[in-house]
């Protein structure tokens, strides 16, 4: 069943949904990456919640004009307009008042959403008996998706993706260093506006499939997951698009296998699974790697300091230091240094003396920043440099 779903064998509607969701995921992941790198991930939350009043107003206008109110393109236009107003208010509050951006985001998202709910109750009373179906946009609903809807979503996703590709360089520049970008002649405000327009476009496109409460997940989770695997911004964007597409595709396919697996939440949970795997297992930034690294660093520090204490005849107070020395066979159980311990301590002391001398030697002192207490000087200097350093050391020691 799952295999059928993943190979798009579950019928026409499921295939439509899967194609739309994949396109949406790729677009959201790519746009979200730039938003995340710009450190404004949660602006998308304001954007998405702010669509609701526009959605409802568009519906009301359609009904007033005698339509059935569920014309997707018009609903999308209405949501885009109201989320644009919300965005403008967020940035206006940042400029006109002392409030920080997060407060402005929270205010706009809650107030717009609240007002949207007011309008929804109005619609409910108007269409008493008749199901307006706008609630479906809160959490998304793919049941009975039309071919035209799916095509619209896929095309919208592709359009957003193309625009993101064209704008990738300037967007990266403002994310990395706003001031520098401005000096280079980039219009930061205009670019921010374009980025927000892309975010808005993704939101509007995603309303039907994942709904306005969960669309932020597709904008935020894939880039955060991608960031764990790479230090390169362009790769973050690519990987994020890939993660987004994977979540959209797998989520849509999986939800087609059973009736009570709603598409939107499943897509979000797929993205979250990718995130969790990245968080734990990514090779350099992942938690496991970081924890191991920290432990190893701590052990190295304690071992080294223990050796130096031995060399200077100072007492060793800390349990961990004592344990490290014992475990490496450098001291006996009663705390007295073993033969190996004495040798290691002497070596550590010589290393320290060399580092100290290196700072005084004009020719070598530029290497002093490499001295972090743990790096052995042999790893930094060539044999010749080491000989030069030792030559400086010997007469001093003879004194």
């Amino acid at each position, binding site marked *: 069943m799952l295999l059928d779903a993943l190979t798009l064998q579950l019928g026409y509607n499921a295939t439509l949904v899967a194609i739309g969701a994949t396109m949406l995921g790729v677009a959201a992941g790519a746009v979200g990456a730039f938003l995340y790198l710009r450190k404004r991930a*949660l602006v998308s*939350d304001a954007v998405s919640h702010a669509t609701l009043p526009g959605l409802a107003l568009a519906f009301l206008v359609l009904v007033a004009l005698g339509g059935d109110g569920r014309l997707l393109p018009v609903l999308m236009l209405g949501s885009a307009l109201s989320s644009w107003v919300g965005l403008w208010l967020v940035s206006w509050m940042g400029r006109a*008042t002392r409030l920080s951006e*997060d407060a402005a*985001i*929270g205010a706009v998202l809650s*107030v717009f*959403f609240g007002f949207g709910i007011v309008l929804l109750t109005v619609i409910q009373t108007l269409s008493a008996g008749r199901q307006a179906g706008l609630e479906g946009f809160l959490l998304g609903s793919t049941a009975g998706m039309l071919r035209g809807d799916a095509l619209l979503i896929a095309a919208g996703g592709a359009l957003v993706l193309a625009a993101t590709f064209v704008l990738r360089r300037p967007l990266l520049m403002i994310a990395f260093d706003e001031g520098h970008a401005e000096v280079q002649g980039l219009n930061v405000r205009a670019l921010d506006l374009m980025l927000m327009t892309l975010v808005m476009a993704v939101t509007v496109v995603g309303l039907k499939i994942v709904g306005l*409460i969960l669309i932020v997940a597709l904008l935020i989770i894939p880039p955060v997951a991608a960031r764990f695997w790479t230090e390169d911004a362009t790769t973050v964007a690519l990987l994020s698009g890939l993660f987004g597409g994977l979540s959209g595709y797998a989520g849509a396919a999986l939800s087609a296998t059973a009736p009570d697996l709603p598409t939107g939440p499943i897509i979000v949970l797929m993205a*979250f699974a990718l995130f969790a795997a990245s968080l734990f297992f990514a090779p350099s930034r992942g938690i496991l790697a970081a924890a191991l690294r920290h432990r190893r660093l701590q052990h190295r520090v304690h071992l080294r300091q223990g050796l130096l204490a031995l060399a200077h005849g100072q007492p060793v107070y800390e349990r961990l230091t004592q344990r490290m020395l014992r475990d490496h066979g450098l001291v006996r159980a009663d705390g007295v240094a073993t033969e190996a311990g004495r040798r290691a301590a002497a070596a550590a002391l010589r290393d320290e003396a060399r580092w100290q001398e290196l700072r005084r030697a004009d020719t070598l002192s530029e290497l002093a920043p490499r001295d972090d207490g743990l790096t052995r000087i042999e790893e930094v200097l060539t044999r010749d440099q080491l000989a030069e350093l030792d030559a400086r050391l010997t007469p001093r020691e003879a004194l």
Partner: protein
Amino acid sequence: MGAEFVTLSLTPILIGCFAAMACALPGNFLLLRRQSLIGDAISHVVLPGIVVAFLVTGTIAALPMMAGAAGAALVSVLLIEAIRRFGKVESGAAMGVVFTAMFAGGVLLLEQTDTSGVHIDVEHALYGNLESLIWLDATGWGSLLDPLALAGLPPEALRMAATFAVVAVLTWLFWRPLKLATFDEGFARALGLPTDLIGLGIVVMAALAAVAAFDAVGSIIVIAMFICPPAAARLMTNRLEAQIGWSMLFALLSAILGYVLAGYGPLWLGATASVSAAGMIATVSGVILGLAALFAPHRRA
């Protein structure tokens, strides 16, 4: 305003007022710590919390629901903090990851669960049912002094009042450390204050308010009250004590005006049915914030 008002509108208004104030109070500290959106995160994870509580206990009694919601709020806050600290993810993004995933999990669980016959759904969690919390035993203003009628108050009224009292007392008791740790964390830590614990305490206080409030009034009011009244109050004054006072006033104003507008506004306009009180309260709080942003004496730094 007579007996009908007391029966149908008094308790919802009171509940709305207590809920608004209970959320706005910790919201002041969240605002100053630039953690306003924690309120957003907490209110989203209430849904998975109540669904899990329902799955575990099989009932929709208030206590297990609140315990579930509180547990979910705590889990979300700890997860956000862990992802931020250990994954080195910026806090806004960490929040976005956690609350959306938990909310999605809640919706999925809800779909998987047979909840036919019990009143538990996404819409309810989002906008509550303030309008239904009426006081059937009331016959008029005199009922306020009638012990028998008072016993018939909706339980939400007492619960919300008690929550506000707890939040208020905690704020009063820990006022100095709260203010100190919010203003200058490094100094507070050098004094020996447990700043991490204080930070967690503020969030737990917010979660307590959110959890107690969502059942009666839904998540929308909760997020709006965490942010809008404190933000508007910040623009009115440069003293924290006065800011708290203003925020309480704005919370009250939003709750009362919002409820009245939702209940009676459409009637004045000739419509027959009322609109969502929760949504209207949030809307009014936004209008107050907008006015403050335009005209308040200390709106700029």
